C-alpha cells in the first residue's frame, strides 16, 4: 500500500516570490507520481506527472517537480508565483501495476499575497 504526506497544510507567499510545496511518499513497489491543482469550486487538474526517465518534470503554468527516489520525495516548485496560483495542491502516488488507483495527500493550500 502507498501513502502520501504533504508536509504543509497551508503555504502563504508573496506574489513573484518562489515557492516549494513538499511531498513525501511511501511505497514498497515502483510508483508513478502526480501533482494536481484544484481551484475554488472546480475539479482536479493535472499539473505534472512522473512516470519514468528524467527526474525533473516540467508541468503547466511554470511548475516543475523533482523525483528523489532515495528521499522518497516529489516536491513541487515554481520560481515566481502569481495571484492566479492561489489554489489547493494535491500530491498523489500510484503503483505501476493493477488498478493504478491514486492515493492522495491531504493537500496544501497555497495563498498568494500581493
Amino acid at each position: 500500500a502507498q501513502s502520501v504526506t504533504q508536509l504543509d497544510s497551508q503555504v502563504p507567499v508573496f506574489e513573484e516570490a518562489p515557492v516549494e510545496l513538499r511531498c513525501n511518499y511511501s511505497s514498497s513497489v515502483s510508483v508513478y507520481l502526480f501533482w494536481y491543482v484544484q481551484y475554488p469550486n472546480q475539479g482536479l487538474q493535472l499539473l505534472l506527472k512522473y512516470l519514468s526517465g528524467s527526474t525533473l518534470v516540467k508541468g503547466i503554468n511554470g511548475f516543475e517537480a523533482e523525483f528523489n527516489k532515495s528521499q522518497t520525495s516529489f516536491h513541487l516548485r515554481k520560481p515566481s508565483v502569481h495571484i492566479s496560483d492561489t489554489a489547493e495542491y494535491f500530491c498523489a502516488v500510484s503503483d505501476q501495476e493493477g488498478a493504478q488507483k491514486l492515493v492522495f495527500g491531504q493537500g496544501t493550500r497555497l495563498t498568494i499575497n500581493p
Partner: protein
Amino acid sequence: GAGVSQTPSNKVTEKGKYVELRCDPISGHTALYWYRQSLGQGPEFLIYFQGTGAADDSGLPNDRFFAVRPEGSVSTLKIQRTERGDSAVYLCASSLIALGSPSGYTFGSGTRLTVV
C-alpha cells in the same frame, strides 16, 4: 464529450434517502474511477471499472455504496440509506487505458452531496 461530465453538480438529500450520482466519461475511455473528497481532505479512492466490470471496489466504505457501468461507458454511483457522514464531493475520472499512459486521468468537476 470533451470532458468528464458529472450530474447533478449539487445534491441535497435527507438522511435515510437513496441517491444516484452519474458520470459520463470521455468517449472511448475504458477505465473509470470514482473518488470521494471530504471537506479539507484529499480525494479517496472508491472503485475502478475496466470496461463494464468493477476491477477493484476495495475503497467502497460499506454495502450501502454500489456502482455500475452496464455498457462500459456511463457509470452510476448509488448510495442507500444515506448518512450525514456521506456528505462529500464525489469525483469521477476516466482514462484511455490506465494511469500510466501518457494521457493519464481526466477528472470531472464532481457532485457535491449534502445529507441533512
